[in-house]
């Protein structure tokens, strides 16, 4: 335990960003991301990130715009945001991916207003699903820190060149103090090569980024982004292995499993609830219940093949969502998992639950209740395909 030190999750992530040697950090503080950018502004002011320029911008819209300018000029960039801040970036997120700029941004996941909530769920990043950004989700502060150099290495690959969000749960992981290995500078230098883009904005060799595309060429640009995402499927796996070789830590590539091999009930989740689920599964396994967990680490690119392979022997699949598509009454994992299984020979019922929205706590008993509902559904069939499991009926 000698390398471990008790720090706040935000500090672990800020430190991880520092050792990735970013050249430019434009950032705007917003709860619960604030501690990350506060720490980075201190690092920058103390000269601990070399010649890094920390830009205090006046909004998240400016932050993402500055990220684009800096990255197009060849700088490695970093920023962090959440919720309304991420939403304010929305239109520019498309520009970043369309211009093939490998921006790295930490998202401290938080609910969307209104009603105002500063607490955790995944609605903010899920709402940005189609912006062309890679999205990975971490289960604890160590994984969130370790994910930072990993996403740089993934998105700066010349075959990928897409921006990435490294997502971790606001408050639950940003504000927790626990033992974490702070990423070593020498190991990170060994793991992550300097940013060397093929194309940059350079007055001596003028180029245009994000130019006008008429109907004759537009779809091809979009398709090439898709090719970049496809390349990321493999890269996310190899980068996780390379990270393990150098640092000795592994969290899965696109997905990870816990008691998955012989599981009849497969819970599917992402983010901080993974840890709580693992503890509950230890208990349920001791009682002889064949329950397993499929952890989704990469939401974009969506690991369709890996998921099909992981769940094909289950009796029931239970996606657990911290987001909702209002008007479909299900969360993103539920929708995507169901879509992944159609047009295959896999015919397994999918029972979706939503919970933990707006920071509502997820006690172990709630996971157990979900498992017992799934057991009933195996026998009796599914009556309601998707629902909130923690709704307070008395307030309706």
């Amino acid at each position: 335990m000698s390398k471990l030190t008790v720090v706040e999750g935000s500090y672990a992530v800020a430190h991880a960003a520092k050792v990735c040697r970013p050249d430019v950090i434009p950032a705007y503080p917003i709860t619960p991301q604030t501690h990350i950018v506060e720490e980075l502004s201190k690092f920058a002011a103390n000269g601990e990130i070399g010649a890094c320029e920390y830009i205090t911008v006046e909004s998240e819209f400016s932050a993402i715009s500055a990220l684009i300018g800096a990255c197009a000029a060849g700088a490695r960039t970093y920023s962090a945001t959440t919720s309304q801040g991420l939403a304010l970036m929305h239109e520019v997120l498309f520009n970043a991916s369309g211009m093939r700029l490998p921006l790295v941004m930490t998202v401290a996941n938080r609910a969307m207003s209104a009603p105002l909530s500063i607490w955790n769920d995944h609605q903010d990043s899920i709402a940005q699903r189609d912006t062309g950004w890679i999205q990975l989700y971490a289960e604890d502060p160590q994984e969130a820190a370790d994910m930072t150099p990993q996403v740089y290495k993934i998105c700066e690959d010349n075959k990928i060149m897409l921006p990435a969000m490294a997502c971790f749960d606001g408050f639950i992981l940003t504000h927790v103090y626990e033992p974490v290995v702070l990423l070593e500078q020498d190991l990170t230098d060994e793991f992550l090569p300097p940013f060397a883009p093929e194309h940059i904005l350079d007055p001596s060799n003028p180029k245009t980024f994000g130019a006008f595309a008429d109907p004759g060429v537009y779809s091809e640009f979009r398709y090439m982004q898709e090719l970049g995402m496809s390349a990321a499927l493999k890269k996310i796996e190899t980068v996780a292995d390379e990270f393990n070789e150098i640092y000795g830590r592994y969290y899965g590539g696109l997905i990870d499993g816990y008691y998955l091999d012989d599981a009849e009930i497969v819970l599917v989740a992402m983010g901080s609830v993974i840890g709580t689920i693992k503890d509950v599964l230890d208990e349920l396994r001791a009682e002889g219940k064949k329950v397993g967990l499929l952890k989704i680490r990469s939401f974009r690119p969506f690991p369709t093949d890996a998921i099909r392979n992981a769940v094909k022997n289950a009796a029931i699949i239970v996606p657990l969502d911290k987001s909702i598509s209002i008007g479909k009454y299900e969360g993103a994992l539920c929708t995507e998992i169901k879509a992944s299984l159609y047009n295959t020979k896999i015919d397994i019922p999918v029972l979706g639950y939503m919970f933990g929205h707006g920071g509502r706590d997820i006690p172990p008993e709630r996971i157990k209740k979900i498992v017992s509902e799934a057991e009933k559904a195996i026998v009796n069939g599914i009556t309601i395909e998707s629902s909130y499991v923690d709704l307070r009926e008395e307030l309706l």
Partner: protein
Amino acid sequence: MKEIRIHGRGGQGSVTAAELLAVAAFEDGKYSQAFPSFGVERRGAPVVAFTRIDDKPIRMRSQVYEPDYVVVQDATLIDVIDVAGGIKKDGLIIINTEKDAGKLKNISAKVMAIDATKIAMDVIGRPIVNTVLLGAFAGATGEIRLESIKKAVGERFSGKIGEKNVAAVDAAYKAMEAHA
């Protein structure tokens, strides 16, 4: 795993106390986790913070519902919230009060009282009781070594303030150890 819930009011340093417990437990060679109840903290409003201590890495991310220990920084909270809620049968509640522990109403679990405010005024010169109660916690429970608490407190607060806080930890530890 041992679970601790700290009740206080905004500005009393409940979250800091939870963090320092985690740091001290780790200093003892254990795994630990500390987190606030994620409220929008305002000065004077009830605040809750949690610490978990275990021999193996802690994965659980839910709030603490059945604490082994409860620390109450401000006895006026007892009239406002159920500070004993969910406490384990063999659990312990440590309350900062000048009253006798036995005379506190509505609490069925084992209760120990300490006049942390008096110790804070005498030793630190200010009514900030969070570090005092950490010393009391170590003395009453034996879950964390006194030296580890003192080291955590001494590293968090620098200079004279740090020294005074460490001395207050000592005083509270001795006061509780005598009763434990």
